[in-house]
Structures are given as structure tokens and as C-alpha cells.
């Protein structure tokens, strides 16, 4: 027995086997890491596509509103009826409100676009300010301006385990 343990026969085979096992382990680790790296890049690329899909939807919306303004201006020069005409042309699903600044009416139009990505919703809020056309503001780009263009993700619930001071005395 002692003779067998002291024998160095086959020791190089054991070393090579250990080396191979180590190499297999490192190769598998390398494949796993690279695959997760690729998945992360694909996720980033998909998120980017969603961003530009929402952006494109917003651009279509602005174009649609500007088109309606142009239609009203081409149809009539009566600025007093401008907001009434615009209100009738806008889709019912679009939120709108009329307010007065220095006695001059202005309309705020707001809409939200939603797109699902990886079972979570992403949103784009678009808020437009429509000012009454006058002798100075004849250009449609001056009449219709963007107040808000905000991308946001679906709110998620979280449990606050640390008792943090929330700034309330």
C-alpha cells in the first residue's frame, strides 16, 4: 500500500485531467457571461426601439394637431372662433383645457402614448400649448409649441425597509 502511494506513475495524467476540468469550467463561465452580455445588449437595443416608436407616435400627434390648425387658418380668418373650431376638430380622447393669459385665450392639449416592453408599460406624455393666432403669430410653429415631452416607465411598488426621514417635520 505504501509502495502504491509513493509511486508517481500516472501523476501527469491527473494533472492534465485537472487542467482540462479547470479549462472546461472557465469555458462554461465565459460562455455564460458572454451570453448574458449579449442579452443585455439586445435588451438595450429593444428599449431604444421602444423609445423611438413612442417618439414617432408623438411626432405624428404634433403633425396632426398642426395640420388641423392649418386647416382652420386656411378656412377662416376669424380668430375669435379659432379655439371653438379646433375643439370640434380634435379627437374626443385628447385632453384639452382653455385658460386665459393677460385676457388672451390659450389651449393646452395633452395626450399619453403607451407601449408595452418586456411586460412593462412605457409612456410618453405630450403637452402642447396652442396660442391664439394674431398678426405676429401667423406661423404654425409659433402658434403650436411643445410644453412637455416626457418619457416615463410604469410605476412599481417597493417596500421601504429602512426608516428614512422623508423631509416632513
Amino acid at each position, binding site marked *: 500500500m505504501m509502495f502504491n502511494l509513493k509511486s508517481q506513475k500516472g501523476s501527469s*495524467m491527473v494533472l*492534465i485531467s485537472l487542467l*482540462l476540468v479547470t*479549462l*472546461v469550467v472557465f*469555458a*462554461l463561465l*465565459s*460562455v455564460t*457571461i*458572454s*451570453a448574458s*452580455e*449579449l442579452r*443585455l*445588449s*439586445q435588451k*438595450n*437595443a429593444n428599449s*431604444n*426601439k421602444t423609445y*423611438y416608436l413612442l*417618439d*414617432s407616435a408623438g*411626432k*405624428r400627434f*404634433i*403633425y396632426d394637431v*398642426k395640420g388641423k390648425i*392649418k386647416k382652420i387658418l386656411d378656412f377662416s380668418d376669424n380668430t375669435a372662433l379659432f379655439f371653438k373650431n379646433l375643439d370640434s376638430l380634435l379627437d374626443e380622447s385628447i385632453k384639452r383645457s382653455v385658460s386665459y393669459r393677460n385676457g388672451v385665450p390659450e389651449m393646452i392639449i395633452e395626450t399619453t402614448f403607451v407601449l408595452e416592453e418586456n411586460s412593462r408599460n412605457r409612456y410618453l406624455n405630450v403637452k402642447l400649448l396652442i396660442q391664439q393666432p394674431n398678426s405676429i403669430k401667423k*406661423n*404654425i*410653429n409659433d402658434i403650436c409649441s411643445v410644453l412637455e415631452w416626457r418619457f416615463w416607465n410604469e410605476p412599481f411598488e417597493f417596500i421601504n425597509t429602512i426608516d428614512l426621514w422623508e423631509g416632513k417635520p
Partner: protein
Amino acid sequence: MVEIIVSAGILAVLAVGIVSLFTVSYVNIQKAIDLDNAVLEINSLIEGFQGTENSTAKVSRFSIYYDDKWERSVDDSAVKYVINGDFKQLSDEQKGLLNLSLRAVRLEPYPFENSENHEIYSIDVIIEDTSYWSE
């Protein structure tokens, strides 16, 4: 003698397996790097075209060539990637909106893959031609 042949065979099979695993890993990393760079380059191109008032860009096609480090290149021998862009009017009814289609392509196949002109990333976006409403 038989034992030596069998063990040499096992070692050879394992060695091939290990090499192929490292190759798969290398290709995956290369694809991830290419995808990240393609997204970055395409994003910067899109942002460059946003709010364009250049009417010459309304309907046109272009190609931008890159070397293996994703640096712009005009040297044919160094070119490894290309981004093809296609500007089109969205429709006759929507003349102030342009559709920009961008496609990033790798001109050489990845190791142990056959497909040349591998598409890395593609996207279609809408660009507003702000000059349209000033006309």
C-alpha cells in the same frame, strides 16, 4: 496501449469542446460589442437629423462606413461595418413627416458563421421637417 489511445481520444474531444466553447464566447462578445456600437452610432445619427430644416435630405439614401473599431472610415480595405440610411416622405398626406430607415450591417461573417452582410440592428423613425410649416 489501448488505454493510451482511449485517453488521448478523450483529451482530444475535450480540447475541441473547450476551444469551441471559447469561440462561442468570443462570437457572443463580438456580437454584443457590435450591437452596442450600432445602437450608439444610429442614435447619434437620428439625433443629428431631428428637427432638420434641410430640404435636400427629404428624399435620399446614404451609407456611412466604419472600421473594426467603429470609427468612420473611407479606406475600403479597413471597412468592416456600414450603416445604410434611407430617407423617405412618410406619405402624400403627411408631407412634413419623413421616415428615416437605418440599418447597421457587418460586412464580414462572424467566425464559424456563413452569413455575410449580417444585420446587426435596424430601426425606423419619424423625423419632423420643421421647415414644412414655415412654407
